[in-house]
């Protein structure tokens, strides 16, 4: 239905209602379409008046819809009125209406009232992140940075994840302020990005840059750049952090992989205890390897070639300078077939160590184990993104460690036009927000959308203090 353009009289509403196919939901439908078309508030008011006169009461959902319209148009006095009415009419107000009220009030000069409402919400439940977002933005808009940061800390303490918008607003509204405490808090946000491996998007990055450059007497300068493959920043010649894990992180990750990925709830789901033991002794006797290859994954690179040929090419391509190779496969590869020629297989086994798992076992888990066991220098080759293995890890911290380790140790083979493979080598530097005190390096995404978790941004913001 098309909402009318002007307030109507009671009889006119009645008529419209009668013409509507299901009159009992007429008001709801009408208000919905008013919200959609952003109709003038007076029209909605006239509908409410008509309703109130007819029934002597207005249903809660109708009030909420009216509130939505008011919030949309920033009608502060109306929002306050609706709140007053709700307050006396209903014992409590539910979260949807609170969200709306807080959002509506925080954008006005009544923003302090939004804060009191937030307190009210806290009594019954954990406020949503949009509630916090509105309040924090309102506080920082009015230069009450301390209050904003208090709310932000409270939000984190309650495990409510802040939106990038909130984080950005901190930088936007602190521009040009000279305040050591504030500066520390904002550095804290950058470290939050670092710890959670969040990459800011382009506009957010710009806010960060502008804030740095606006610090009075700070002498910060920001440049956009691409980091060289060696991990050196072309602007300040600073070497970025390398992608190696610390000893503690490394052993922690190895333990978790064995415990959660290979064994999980039931060792039999991915392998069998006998097989895993056999594999362990096999690996221990031949340590350390330089490159571990997922044989089956590599053998499917070029679908029109024989599978063992693909593997053969890959092994030849990687077997340089006496690198010790381990190829993981399944037992069916040993059976002479159209895809797996015995001669080629035997020839390959002279160049690399092979381990063949049962046909129903998962070889990926073995790949991870063998690589981790061989030490930090060891790389692995597969095109698999290993997302399902990452998902087996219990907490986000270990998952971040896994991703970091994966970035530093996974080599991806790509098919090329001719018969050679091209490799996408592992990153030797760590792609994360980092600082040395007088420099900051911040990777950023070109677009707002989230990238795949295995992809990392290639563009960087380099900030240095002169």
């Amino acid at each position, binding site marked *: 239905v098309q909402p009318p353009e002007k307030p109507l009289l009671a009889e006119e509403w009645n008529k419209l209602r009668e013409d509507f196919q299901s009159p009992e939901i007429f008001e709801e439908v009408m208000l919905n379409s008013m919200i959609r078309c952003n109709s003038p508030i007076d029209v909605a008011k006239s509908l409410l008046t008509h309703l*109130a006169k007819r029934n002597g009461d207005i249903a809660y959902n109708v009030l909420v819809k009216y509130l939505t319209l008011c919030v949309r148009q920033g009608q502060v006095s109306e929002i306050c009125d609706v709140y007053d009415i709700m307050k006396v009419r209903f014992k409590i107000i539910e979260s*949807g209406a609170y969200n709306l009220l807080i959002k509506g009030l925080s954008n006005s000069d009544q923003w302090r009232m939004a804060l009191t409402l937030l307190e009210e919400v806290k009594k019954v439940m954990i406020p949503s992140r949009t509630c916090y977002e509105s309040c924090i933005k309102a506080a920082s808009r009015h230069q009450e940075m301390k209050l904003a940061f208090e709310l932000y800390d409270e939000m984190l303490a309650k495990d409510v994840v802040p939106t990038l918008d909130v984080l950005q607003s901190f930088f936007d509204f602190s521009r040009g302020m000279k305040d050591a405490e504030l500066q520390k808090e904002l550095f804290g946000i950058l470290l939050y990005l670092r710890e959670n491996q969040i990459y800011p998007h382009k506009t957010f990055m710009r806010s960060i840059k502008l804030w740095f450059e606006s610090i009075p007497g700070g002498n910060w300068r920001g440049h956009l750049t691409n980091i060289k493959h060696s991990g050196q920043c072309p602007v300040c010649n600073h070497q970025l952090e390398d992608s190696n894990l610390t000893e503690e992180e490394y052993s922690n990750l190895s333990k978790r992989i064995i415990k959660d990925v290979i064994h999980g709830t039931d060792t*039999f789901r991915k392998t069998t205890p006998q097989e895993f033991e056999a594999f362990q002794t096999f690996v221990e006797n031949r340590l350390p390897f330089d490159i571990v290859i997922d044989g089956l994954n590599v053998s499917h690179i070029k679908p029109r070639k024989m599978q063992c040929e693909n593997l053969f090419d890959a092994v030849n391509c990687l077997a340089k300078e006496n690198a010790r190779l381990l190829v993981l496969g399944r037992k069916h590869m040993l059976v002479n077939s159209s895809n797996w020629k015995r001669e080629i297989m035997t020839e390959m086994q002279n160049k690399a160590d092979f381990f063949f798992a049962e046909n129903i076992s998962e070889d990926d888990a073995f790949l991870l184990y063998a690589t981790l066991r061989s030490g930090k220098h060891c790389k692995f080759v597969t095109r698999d993104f290993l997302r399902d293995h990452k998902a087996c890890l219990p907490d986000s911290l270990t998952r971040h460690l896994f991703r970091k380790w994966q970035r530093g140790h996974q080599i991806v083979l790509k098919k090329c036009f001719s018969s050679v493979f091209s490799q996408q080598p592992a990153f030797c530097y760590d792609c994360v927000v980092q600082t040395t005190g007088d420099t900051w390096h911040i990777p950023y995404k070109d677009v707002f959308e989230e990238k795949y978790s295995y992809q990392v941004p290639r563009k960087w913001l380099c900030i240095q203090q002169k």
Partner: protein
Amino acid sequence: MQSANMLLRKIVRSSVLPFAAQQRVQTDLFPLSRTLSLSLRLKQDKSCEPSEKLDLDEWKKVMKSGLQEEVSETVSEPKELSSLAAARETLEMWRLAGRAVPENISEEQLKTFMECPSKSAKKKYLKYLYLKELHKKKDKRKMDEKRERRLEAQDQASKTDDTKKSSFLCMWSSTMDKAYNWRAAQSMIFGQPLVFDMSYEKEMSVREVKNTVSQIVLSESCNRRSVDPFHIHFCNFKDDSLYHREFIKQYREAWGKLLITVTDQCYTEIFPKDKLIYLTADSPKVMKTFDHDKIYIVGSMVDRSIKTGVSLAQAKRLGLETAALPLEKYLLWSTGAKNLTLDQMMLVLLTLKDTADWKKALEFVPKRKYCGFVNKPVKELKKTLDLISTLKHGRGREEVQRQFAKSYPKK
């Protein structure tokens, strides 16, 4: 003039000029060409009109006025609410706001609701209750209608009052039950065993266990009704487990009289290992024929969050042979997981046992999951598919070569 009048009235009534109808300005009629000026005049009329008729904030007065007494009442009440009561209030408000929330909620359900770990879990649980309530209401309405119709029919029948004499014996359900039970009892002595492995309780949520039990109840009834029933075994069945409690809830006193074998032993202890075949969709082996000498095992598990390889792991641990239904061989699979519900599995197995006809047996796979039966042998199909793909690729290769030649012309 008359028709023009009508037309004008129509225009006026349509939403373009809603006020015109109200003010009844049709007394002086203009030809159609002048409607524009008419609407202009209307607007002026409207602006001249005092707005006293339309007090836009009147609803606020109404809302506030009706409440004075109520407010004074509520104030005197103690304000502090227990958490349960507060949750109930919140639910009520959500219901008023038009969310999917049940109208009535029991204390127990309310506790479950509050124990939900996250907001989305809470929402899901409420929606589940809401839909349950909706279905219940609908069923009740249908029952009432049915009863009314039956009463009417009875009335009519008593009026006409002609008793039909039939030469057939009327088979009442108790007689049928006796016949079925007789068959089931025979199957307990001579029938082929079929094992339900009840060792997956830990892998499932409460709701999944409930679903599992209702699926088993369905399959048991299918089995009882069949011509040649299986001898059903519930193995690894722990007393006072969630399974047990749910079975009692479903069967009530009939649980003790069921003609099946329930044991806490494992099937490997009852049957020789080489005769057991574990049916699981993850199995690499595909079942070719139904073997009347083997004992098939079905895992009693509903996994809503597809947990791959759980039952395969169980079979591996015990060193049993496994098999999967040849779904891909006979059906052109379209969507959905390959794991079937327990009652579907039972129907498939029963049909296989009686007819050995895969096509008939796989009729019980839900229609939404496949597009149709494979008529030709799969090998032939594959050949044609290969042919098509090579043709495609062949053309593709030529195109690539042409492109290559274009971009790197020979010097």
